[in-house]
């Protein structure tokens, strides 16, 4: 061992730095669909869509908001605080620890962010559900944020656009999580009473209590290409019926075919599409070219 020391002291750092130099993290991204390797920077510059295969990767809340609002400028809406950990929950880990980790990892307070600003000149309130925060799960904080977003739209008399992405209920909050279904639906009804457009964009994946409440109650449903959208997750269905699911089942295109979404829109067209729809619904003239 003694003799090994001078070797590792002298040689190892060199090897380490050599390895480091050649493989910095996230330089390359492998397309989950085609398997091709692409430059991470190219993917990032393309709104997290893989150039070539057009595979839509997840887009975090902040870049999503920046991609929508004119010049990337928006006002973030303050969200109400909610009681943390009402069940004093722990599974393999304490829920409060999971929450803290998710906050550190994503730099978010919880899964939903609400912002106000202009999209091609149209005033909009936008909500984004970030899948990276505990699977975008719907707990008290996310539910309260969705409600706040819809209330903000009513107060500011703007349409409400929601980018949904979630595995469903925040299990660690038990029945408080389930109660976000009727609670958010109350807010959807208020948006409707105010006759303000509600546009839902379903991103990959959106399932469970989120699709079974506010995410399926929009005036217009847009899905991102390839997004998994459904009530039950594919694994649960396979376990129930004990057979393999058909190719493309529960994907955006499948949902359109079955009449559940109005259109499947590429991320690069999202901003223009939403602005156009809002203008028509508001009886505004088309945007000057």
């Amino acid at each position: 061992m003694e003799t090994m020391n001078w070797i590792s002291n002298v040689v190892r750092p060199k090897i380490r730095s050599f390895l480091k130099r050649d493989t910095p993290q996230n330089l390359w991204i492998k397309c989950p669909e085609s398997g091709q390797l692409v430059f991470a920077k190219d993917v990032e510059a393309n709104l997290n869509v893989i150039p070539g295969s057009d595979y839509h990767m997840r887009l975090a809340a902040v870049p999503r908001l920046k991609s929508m609002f004119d010049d990337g400028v928006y006002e973030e809406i303050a969200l109400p605080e909610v009681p943390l950990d009402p069940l004093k929950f722990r599974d393999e880990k304490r829920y409060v620890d999971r929450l803290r980790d998710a906050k550190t990892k994503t730099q978010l307070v919880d899964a939903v962010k609400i912002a106000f600003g202009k999209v091609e000149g149209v005033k909009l309130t936008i909500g984004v559900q970030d899948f990276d925060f505990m699977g975008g799960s719907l707990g008290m904080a996310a539910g309260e944020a969705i409600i706040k977003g819809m209330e903000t739209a009513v107060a500011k008399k703007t349409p409400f656009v929601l980018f949904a992405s979630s595995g469903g209920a925040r299990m660690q909050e038990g029945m408080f999580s389930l109660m976000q279904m009727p609670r958010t639906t109350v807010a959807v009804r208020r948006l409707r009473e105010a006759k303000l457009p509600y546009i839902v964009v379903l991103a990959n994946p959106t399932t469970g209590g989120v699709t079974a409440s506010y995410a399926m109650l929009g005036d217009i449903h847009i899905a991102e290409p390839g997004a998994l959208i459904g009530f039950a997750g594919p694994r649960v269905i396979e376990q129930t019926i004990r057979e393999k699911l058909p190719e493309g089942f529960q994907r955006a295109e499948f949902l359109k075919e079955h009449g559940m979404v109005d259109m499947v829109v590429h991320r690069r067209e999202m901003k223009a599409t939403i602005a156009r729809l809002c203008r028509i619904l508001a009886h505004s003239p088309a945007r000057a070219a």
Partner: protein
Amino acid sequence: MRSYLDFEKSVAEIDAKADELSAILATGGSPALADEIGRIEARAKAALKDLYASLTPWQKAMVARHPMRPHFKDYITGLVEDFSPLAGDRAFGEDEAIVAGIGRFRGVSVAVIGQEKGSDTESRIRHNFGMAMPEGYRKAVRIMEMADRFNLPVISIVDTAGAYPGIGAEERGQAEAIARSTEACLGLGVPNIAVIIGEGGSGGAVAIASTNTVLMLEHSIYTVASPEASASILWHDSSKAQEAATTMKITAQDLLKFGIIDGIIQEPVGGAHRDNAAAIASVGDAVEKSLQSLSGLTPGELRDKRAEKFLGIGRKL
């Protein structure tokens, strides 16, 4: 032949003793033996009462799913006169997992919606074990809208493990159907009351339980996911269901404390399945009382009260 749940062993033994002595008495025994039987029966009753006063959440789940527990159709038979089931969603089909119709409850015209699990192999299959398809929820919406037009209060009888997760259900928009049904509940200008009589399983229950008043039977459960599903999602081990049942807080007692439900309906000693008639009568009384407390409110007031109730959940803990 009585049936016992696993945790009722102590009571079963006392009952067996009483049965044994009764058999001897039947073939001629002393009057002292009859007294002894009386004492043993009283002991059995006391043991049952003690046992049911401190059921664990997992034990409650077992009681909530007991096959002899009164089901939707038993409540209809016991409480609703002239019940007229109405079939179909007018779009795709008739789903018997949800039964809906109109009738008279203690003299008042009402609409009733609920899941029926079935009570033997044939009826369980016909009712798909109480797990509804989208057309079941769309039928519920149709009946709620009709109830609104004709000023009929809506009574929901909730008893489901959850909405059905299958290919057809997904193709026909299970999520959308549940969301619309929840929305229909919240939009009603007539009073609506939900009673969870066994299992209130997740979105499949919420869809018909987003009501002015939500009541639970004493040993029923209301869950975001069944204890088994919670165990496999959170602990990656479905054998942890008992632990999940406790941690997830699924009992009527916990949910009343949290302000998630509005009241608990007492069950007969030893659970609803030991005295169906008494359980059904208690549910009838509780529903009648709830309806009375909502009478005289305008459609707008009913909607606002309902909306505020749900918005208030979890805001003050």
